[in-house]
């Protein structure tokens, strides 16, 4: 009488599919690595440094014209993109300028009189040229489009900060995974902990691979998304593991593979249910949440799908490979007939 995406009792033999799943995961991971090394990530201004300016006008903006004018400023690699809402109406135009190097071009004509601090002055000059470039682009856009345009967003990130943000972002992801490892270790057994971490690393790599392939901008928000995916995927894995532990106590004689299958099937309905509610919320964000959140939302949606897959097909079968303690009723392993 109620909507049930998964029938009440299922008996799918997930562990039998582990070879196929392993092949698929291996292919995805290898593919991700290839994409990451050949294409790399499309780092946004947060991590690469440089300038992003989002400009809106009452009339439609000719992207080609903007590109010509901004390229003419001699600021290196320039990208111009149009931002559209879901209906396809143009909301704004984004101009991206790569990080500027001080002293290369004749652009920075010494606004700050250097008074001898050679090493620091150079570092400061590298920060200063980003600011100057941002000002130049704003002036050029005003000249081209008129003074009444609105600068919806201006991001200027210098080399110092972008370097720090990369470090902190990477550190955050590694730290998150390490904390999960320790927590699961404390609550379960090391085999579980290892299985969960393998699944997490699997999810993170494939998510990064997706970003390399799709060329979606990789920025600070995406780091937040990855951390959330780590949390979510862990969440999924823990629920299955929790049931595995319970069933191991209950069915002391069953084959481990059987116990795993039983546990996954027991929790399958919940796994699907939670994924659907989360995806519902994310879909609302993707469609209505505006352009600022789009990359974040897409990363999350992808992560939920991968995270759900990995808890069923990676984390659990992994226990088969390592084996687990079977007798949870006693602290020390004593032989029971």
């Amino acid at each position: 009488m109620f909507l049930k995406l998964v029938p009440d009792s299922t008996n799918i033999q997930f562990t039998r599919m582990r070879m196929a799943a392993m092949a698929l995961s291996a292919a995805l991971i290898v593919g991700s690595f290839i994409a990451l090394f050949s294409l790399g990530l499309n780092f946004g201004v947060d991590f690469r440094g440089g300038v992003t300016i989002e400009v809106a006008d009452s009339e439609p903006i000719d992207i080609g014209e903007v590109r010509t004018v901004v390229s003419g400023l001699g600021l290196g690699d320039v990208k111009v993109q149009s931002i559209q809402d879901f209906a396809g109406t143009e909301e704004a135009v984004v101009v991206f300028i790569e990080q500027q190097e001080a002293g290369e071009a004749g652009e920075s004509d010494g606004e700050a009189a250097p008074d001898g601090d050679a090493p620091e002055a150079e570092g400061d000059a590298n920060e200063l040229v980003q600011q100057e470039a941002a000002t130049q682009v704003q002036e050029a856009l005003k000249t081209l489009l008129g003074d009444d345009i609105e600068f919806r967003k201006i991001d200027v990130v210098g080399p110092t900060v972008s370097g720090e943000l990369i470090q902190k972002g990477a550190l955050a992801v590694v730290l998150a995974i390490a904390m999960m490892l320790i927590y699961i270790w404390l609550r379960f057994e090391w085999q579980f902990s290892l299985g969960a971490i393998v699944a997490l690393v699997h999810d993170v790599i494939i998510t990064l691979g997706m970003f390399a392939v799709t060329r979606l901008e990789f920025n600070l928000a995406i780091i937040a998304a990855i951390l959330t995916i780590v949390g979510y995927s862990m969440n999924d894995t823990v629920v299955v593991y929790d049931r595995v532990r319970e069933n191991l106590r209950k069915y002391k004689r069953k084959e481990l593979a059987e116990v795993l299958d039983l546990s996954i099937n027991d929790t399958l309905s919940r796994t699907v249910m939670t994924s659907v509610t989360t995806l519902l919320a994310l879909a609302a964000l993707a469609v209505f949440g505006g352009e600022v959140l789009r990359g974040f939302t897409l990363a999350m949606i992808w992560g939920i799908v991968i995270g759900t897959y990995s808890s069923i097909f990676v984390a659990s079968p992994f226990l088969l490979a390592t084996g687990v303690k079977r007798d949870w009723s006693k602290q020390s392993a004593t032989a029971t007939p």
Partner: protein
Amino acid sequence: MLQFSKTQIAGIVGLIILGLAFAIPNFLSEETRNNLPGFLPKTTINLGLDLQGGSYLLLGVDTDKVIDDRMRAVMSDIRREMRPNRAGGRERVSIDNLAYNEATNVVTLRLRNEADLNEARDRVRDVTRGGLGGGLGLGLRPYAVSASGARIEIAMTQEAERFYSSESVRDSIEVVRRRIDPAGNKEVSIQPQGADRIVVQVPGDDDPEALKAIINRTGQLSFHRQDPSVNPQDAAAGLLPPGRMLVPFAEFEGSGAPPMVLFEDAEVTGDMVENASAGPNSDGGGFQINFTFDSRGARRFADYTRNNIGSIFAIVLDGEIISAPRIQSAITQGNGRITGNFSALEASETALLIRSGALPAELTTLEQRSVGPDLGRDSVEAGAKALIIGFIGVIIYMVISYGRFGVYADMALIANVILIAGVLSLLGSTLTLPGIAGIVLTVGMAVDANVLIFERIREELANGKTPINAAEVGYQKAWSAILDANVTTFLAALIMFQLGAGPVRGFAITLAVGVVTSVFTAYVLTRLFAGGYLLSKRPKTMAL
């Protein structure tokens, strides 16, 4: 498990009412809020700059420069101190060489006669004794002086270095505040970050370019003697005697005068200026800046002008001459005026710059994030829309999946959002766009606990348990999974908060708060509803 005592129920209901009380001020106008009786909470959630529009600037303070400046000042004090002083009956100490090494931060004084060493060392000790900034611990010397042979080395102690660095950050914050918020009525936030950084957050639609222009000027004002014996052209060609500098004129209208050769050592510096204001030029035409010295500055300026009548001096601001008058007579009243070719705007900006004092060191903009008010408004609308639609979607989905129990879960979900709003208001935290995303995501994930429980109850029902029994067992058995699952998400949020920047922190906060409140609403509140239904109706069968 399903039984609740009266106190427990009162506690649960009380908590939700409390959450509501803290959440409500967000929906009231400021006026109604101010008219609320005193015992009611009034704090609201602040909108982040990405939602209300505004500028975020991360500024780097050049603390190395501050140390260098201090050491250079020590060096010129020492040079002065080695000169003869007729009144004090002091002889000249001949200097062979006096230099400052920027890499090591050490001033080295080499004497011509080794015999002068003790006398020279005493004089050096005299000028380096005082805690220049004040506030250094008693008996703590800011400089270490060591002497051997004909050499004296002066280095700053590490404590002093740290002290002056953090002092320069504090001073910079004060100066920046005086510049962007002279009246003290704006909602600007200026805060130190790390050892040598400042975060400036200015909400509203102020032009970020203008903001940066006023922050990034050092505002270093000084009065210098001209050295008429050196030809500026020779100086430009590199024939600059030690202790002199070639300074260009500021680019005011009609100036374009050739640069002047000035003595490096300033006669009076901007920190001795007490006040400055713009006014119409008293000689007619244009604007001027009127300023007042403090007592020390007034004395120095009086001495200087008395002894140099007829010669030219220059007023230098940030490495440019803004005025170069000839001294007509001794100026003893301690005030003066700068008559360049100022426009009204230039005069008032320059006066503000002088009045707010000089930055101890140049500020470098390391990062800028500006959001226009329109994008902010769009983001709020989009976020709210996504929240409502996502919310409705999840609510409907829960009802069609679990019927009556779905309704319980939905009520818990509503309570959850109220509690999140309440806690965020209580903390006075800042809501960013990613923060809204965090709430939307929490809505999707918060029902997870209920899903876990309900699925468990279904299983137990299928095993032939009675509804009450099944519910009891369901809640009991689902707990460990709920706990583990939420702790992991909480840990992820914690790391994001620790390491995240700006908006990401907003996301981390809402996610963390949402995790905690959702465990309460999903596990406790729904149990209260389910228990109330099951224990009063005692149904034989239950649809789930």
